[in-house]
């Protein structure tokens, strides 16, 4: 029995009551889902490190942060900033500033007929039946406080629907910006993505901060990949270094789908990324790639959960981490193979490179296998730069720092090579080099270490 304390649920009860007025224009089914979600959250409050899934990531800095919903800010964001973060992609782009959709900063792209890329709030107001079937039907609010909070409070986000047999050739970009004009503000971006049968699309969700105040982003993404669809998801987490970011991707794969996710996490003081994949029918393949690079006192946590529910599916995970300064990392990869899921092929790898003596990583694979004809492998490594390689490079005239950068870059290169969208790959190659050449030990003044140390 978990007893809710006021501290545990922070200021959210008042806020939820306040919001009810505004949400009263929403359809009854949505109001009801929000009520249920809030009730679930109130019951448990924020998870503490006693919760198995939060053993190494302490959300206390978020829980005691007294976060208020970001108000519909009038903050001016120059189009040049958006263009830069848009990486020169010409496809459809939705831009959100402090949680609110900004049509003026967005671009329609040229989408095939029937494809919808719209503000979720707009759809909820104008055509709610479009989202009723799936919104908040997959991302579980029971015992998932952050998902419950998002569900109770989300103000906007994106709705993407690709009709059957439709190929969207240009990546769809969903860009979330936090101006952090006021301190201790939170946004709860909500995304619903439905890829029809035999459709193909690449979707990018990216998160950037533009200000120095403390803010928190708590996103939830539900993705439904229809039969024989090809879906590529990119998550770019590049929050400001003082910010908190928590995000969930809940992905439901139908029959014969091909799915790839790429998680690129560079920013944030305290970051928690969850990806849950349900392989719900036969013959699907999913690749989960991840790269995190942290410094100073940053803390980054990746949790993956692959649920092999049906036979003949493959899941390949490769997450790589580069940790410098006093940063800490967590990787927790869980693979469930149900009794029915024969011929499952699941590979999980997590590799970490520690660039300093103070950096640390906790990495844990969890396998629950109930079928007998399967192949499941996992591996985790935590290492330093190879001394002999360093000496080899230096003996050829390359200085210590450049040698370090070259070897670190090489460590991460295979994750970047898997990125199929060239501007994103180029951007992150540059980001990584830039990250490497930054002065070590960047301290974020308001950053609290997620993990309590003695």
């Amino acid at each position, binding site marked *: 029995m978990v007893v809710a304390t006021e501290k545990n649920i922070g200021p959210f009860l008042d806020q939820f009551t306040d919001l009810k007025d505004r949400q009263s224009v929403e359809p009854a089914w949505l109001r009801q889902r929000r009520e249920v979600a809030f009730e679930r959250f109130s019951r448990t409050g924020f998870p503490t490190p006693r919760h198995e899934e939060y053993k190494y990531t302490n959300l206390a800095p978020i829980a005691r942060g007294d976060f208020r919903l970001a108000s519909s800010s009038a903050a001016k964001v120059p189009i040049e900033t958006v263009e830069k973060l848009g990486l020169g992609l010409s496809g459809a782009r939705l831009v959100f500033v402090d949680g609110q959709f900004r049509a003026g900063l967005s671009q329609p792209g040229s989408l095939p007929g029937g494809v919808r890329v719209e503000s979720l709030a707009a759809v909820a107001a104008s055509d709610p039946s479009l989202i009723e079937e799936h919104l908040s039907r997959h991302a579980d609010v029971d015992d998932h406080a952050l998902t419950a909070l998002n569900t109770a409070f989300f103000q906007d986000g994106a709705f993407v629907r690709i009709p059957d047999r439709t190929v969207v050739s240009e990546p769809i970009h969903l860009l979330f910006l936090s101006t952090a004009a006021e301190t201790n503000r939170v946004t709860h971006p909500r995304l619903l993505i439905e890829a029809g049968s035999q459709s193909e699309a690449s979707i990018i969700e990216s998160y950037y901060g533009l200000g120095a105040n403390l803010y928190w982003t708590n996103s939830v993404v539900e993705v439904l990949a229809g039969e024989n669809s090809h879906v590529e998801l990119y998550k770019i987490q590049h929050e400001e270094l003082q910010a908190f970011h928590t995000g969930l991707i809940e992905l439901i794969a139908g029959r014969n789908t091909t799915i790839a996710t790429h998680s690129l996490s560079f920013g944030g003081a305290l970051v928690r990324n969850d990806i849950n994949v349900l392989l719900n029918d036969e013959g699907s393949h999913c690749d989960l790639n991840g790269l995190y690079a942290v410094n100073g006192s940053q803390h980054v946590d990746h949790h993956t959960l692959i649920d092999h529910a049906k036979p003949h599916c493959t899941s390949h995970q490769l997450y790589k981490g580069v940790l410098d300064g006093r940063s800490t990392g967590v990787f927790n990869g869980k693979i469930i193979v149900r009794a029915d899921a024969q011929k499952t092929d699941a590979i999980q790898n997590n590799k970490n490179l520690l660039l300093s003596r103070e950096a640390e990583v906790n990495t844990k694979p969890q396998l629950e296998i109930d079928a007998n004809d399967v192949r499941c492998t996992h591996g985790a490594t935590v290492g330093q730069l190879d001394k002999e390689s360093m000496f080899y490079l*230096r003996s050829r005239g390359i*200085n210590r720092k*450049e040698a370090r950068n070259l*070897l670190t*870059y*090489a*460590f991460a290169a295979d994750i970047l090579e898997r990125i199929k969208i060239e501007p994103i790959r180029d951007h992150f190659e540059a980001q990584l080099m830039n990250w490497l050449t930054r002065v070590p030990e960047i301290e974020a003044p308001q950053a609290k270490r997620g993990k309590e140390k003695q």
Partner: protein
Amino acid sequence: MLEVKNLAVKVEDKQILKGISLNVKKGEVHAIMGPNGSGKSTLAGVLAGRDAYEVTGGSVTYEGKDLLDMDPEVRAQEGIFMAFQYPVEIPGVSNMYFLRTALNAIREHRGQSDLDAVDFMAMVKERMKLLKMDDAMMTRAVNMGFSGGEKKRNEIFQMTVLEPKLAILDETDSGLDIDALKLVAEGVNAMRSAERAIVVVTHYQRLLDYIVPDYVHVLAGGRIVKSGDKSLALELEEKGYGWIEEEATKQGQLVAS
């Protein structure tokens, strides 16, 4: 060019070099021979700047400067090159990128501008021909999937591109078949010049049939126990290292007493 005086070196508390003196001038080729465990590779490593060593005595002067005071990259930038006995595999870094980065670091140190891609390629192609290197080797990651012989050839190839003033070849011949050995020797000989010195560290005399040294030094028990010209190498080949080791023991006793 290189003056080693009474150099004494410890590795993990064990005294490996016990007072080595060596004088290498421009244009000379010196061979350092000796049985396994005599300290040959330690000497090469100390000169290149490997940090597992503790210098307990003596000095090394390179072009009038204190070599032991320099970081390995500075030594390389100042013109020292060591061909590794065991070249390192570096996944994810292409040979081409690696070599261009190294060359431009050295050029920068010399106050020269970066070599542009076209000039770099032209030079690389020419040097690759000399060592009969496959074009594909350049785009592959450094030493990844290379055979033993290819790795050693790659070392010499790097040397021909970086054009050092002082090259130290650490057992470059070990493990090579005769064809590979000839190729490597050809590469080294092409580099011989009045401005360049080469120190060849080897266990076997065979390499010296192809790279003919001006001087041969025999290292045993952490000391140079005998120096001579190329005929010394032939003598060693004939008689083996046994008699040298006996002599080293005697000398050691003399020093000890």
